[in-house]
């Protein structure tokens, strides 16, 4: 097997090629798409999705799915927002602990329902998607947390940093992606998640504590959604009980699946997921630039997701054929 085929066998290569082709195609019509400014726009568009996608990847690898993350994000953001509003004297970085803690708690609750009562994750998290959103309305009395209550230091994290003015939020997502890579590939527990997803029966027989792993992936998914929650307040400057996090789960799951994570469990990489997130980010920022009207953007966005999956499948099958022909 030569190196080229090896690279093409990797799912990430297909997505990477698609990103490059897509950007070049857009750049042919709109040269301003291939500028640093444009890169900045894309990078500032994707952080929340990327944070959520790292958690969702682990959940999918473990053969589950977490549909509740949009509401987990909303609830965590609202708790933190209310803390900022009613206790403005509190040291603001504590908000990170609170958001991540609340998110992890909601994720654990999903995990408990799934492991304790042996309920399917898709149904449990569909339920908590509504439950957590409802709780967000209740605790906030359906009122928005306005811009003036969000600490300006937190908002600045999404705008700048002393390092070439690259916003802190960009460094944060790079760190999270690296940490997730290390956790998934180089820790015992991380590998157990993959083992469980590939073959749950065999995993149990080999002594992996299935319940513990399941609880862990949901807690991680919730914690990351909580982190995305405080970063929502940072990025957009407000927290709204109905808008904040609404539809987040669909963006995240689309990105993760485009990134090559199998919904049948056991398969997925951090690099693929990151590329999936970037592809969707490029598409979202290119459509308005191309002057495509809002009415057709949704349809095109959906079509791009499906085309990306089809191309990816085509590329890999061809690579497999080439290799088997040589063998």
């Amino acid at each position: 097997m030569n190196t080229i085929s090896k690279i093409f066998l990797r799912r990430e290569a297909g997505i990477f090629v698609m990103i490059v082709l897509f950007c070049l195609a857009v750049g042919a019509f709109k040269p301003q798409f291939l500028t640093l400014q444009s890169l900045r726009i894309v990078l500032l568009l994707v952080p929340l999705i990327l944070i959520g996608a790292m958690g969702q990847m682990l959940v999918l690898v473990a053969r589950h799915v977490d549909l509740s993350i949009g509401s987990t994000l909303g609830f965590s953001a609202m708790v933190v927002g209310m803390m900022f509003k009613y206790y403005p004297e509190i040291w603001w970085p504590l908000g990170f602990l609170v958001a991540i803690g609340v998110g992890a708690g909601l994720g654990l609750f999903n995990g408990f329902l799934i492991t304790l009562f042996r309920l399917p994750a898709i149904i449990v998290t569909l339920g908590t998607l509504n439950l957590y959103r409802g709780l967000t309305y209740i605790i906030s009395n359906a009122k928005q947390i306005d811009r003036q209550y969000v600490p300006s230091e937190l908002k600045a994290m999404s705008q700048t940093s002393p390092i070439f003015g690259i916003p802190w939020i960009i460094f944060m997502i790079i760190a999270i992606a690296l940490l997730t890579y290390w956790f998934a590939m180089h820790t015992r527990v991380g590998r157990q998640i993959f083992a469980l997803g590939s073959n749950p029966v065999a995993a149990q027989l080999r002594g992996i504590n299935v319940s513990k792993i399941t609880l862990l992936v949901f807690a991680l998914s919730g914690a990351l959604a909580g982190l995305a929650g405080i970063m929502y307040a940072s990025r957009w400057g407000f927290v709204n009980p109905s808008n904040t996090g609404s539809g987040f789960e669909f963006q995240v799951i689309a990105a993760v699946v485009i990134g090559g994570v199998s919904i049948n469990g056991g398969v997925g990489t951090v690099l693929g997921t990151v590329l999936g997130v970037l592809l969707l980010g490029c598409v979202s920022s290119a459509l308005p630039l191309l002057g495509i009207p809002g009415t057709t953007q949704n349809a095109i966005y959906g079509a791009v997701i499906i085309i990306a999956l089809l191309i990816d499948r085509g590329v890999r099958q061809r690579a497999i054929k080439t290799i088997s022909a040589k063998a």
Partner: protein
Amino acid sequence: MLKKSILIGLAFGLATIVTGAFAQDPIKIVYIGKNTGNPYFDSITGGFEDACQVKGCDFLFVAPPTAEATSQIPFIEAQIQRGVNVIGIAPNSPDALNQVLDEARAKGILVLTVNGDLVGNESHRDATILPVDFTKTGPNQVELMGSMINYEGDIAILSATTEAPDQNTWIAAMKDTLANNPKYANMHLVATVYGDDQPEKSTTEMEALLANYPDLVGVIAPTTVGIAAAAQVVQSRMIADKVHVTGLGLPSEMRDFVKDGTVSAFQLWSPYNEGWLAVHFALGVLDGSIKNEVGGTFEVPNLGTITINDLNAMNTQAELTTFDINNIDDFNF
């Protein structure tokens, strides 16, 4: 969701009943908003609450979780069953509610559209309360934009959704004003884009405007989510001296942008006064002191003389209010 809204509403209602306990049988007024969690409606509701406290009526606010065409129907039905005397509503659709509103009126309930009307279906409600004569919105916004850019250069509009009737009326009036008033002959509208009232989408549309039209000097965003998103883009790119953002915004959401110089001025009306007027009008009609006839007039404390215009429409103010650094702190909505 329904249960929760009713519970919260009941809490409000109870509070009102307690304060107005001496009244024998208080008039029950409900206001059905477009959706929950929309800060704009907090302000309208405040006007309803305060007026009901003064006049001694029982007020309840309910709203569906999402602003869909049909999502208000079950809420209207629940209020009919509860036996309210007055339904105020910000309709999510100009025609999907006809039948259920007719049902309410057949039961003797006074139906008012507040903050938005059933355009083309006015016969299905008794009267409408709008903050301002909406034909003024377009010209007022163009004039404000012009004053910020010395009446020359490329400008763009960042709107909400493509099908929002009020947005489209205003945009048509802006285009008309730009085309026909020689004062604005040097202002060129280069694009109209839609951010769907989502911060993410409004931001990408705003960024695309800046990338596509390097000579852009102004953006009008006649929607509260859009103007905040546009202002945030201009703030983070530090181009407030080059690209001027204005539009319709809430003082509570825009205060920071005005104070740091990102936005020099924007407009709106007082949503609070809509609720205040609605209660005074409804109680007047119910006790016979106000006749709901076109051309009629009546007095409302703090608002002065209100005239019932064509199609039984009333406005709380004649022109839009302009907010800037000098007055922004006078408004708490």
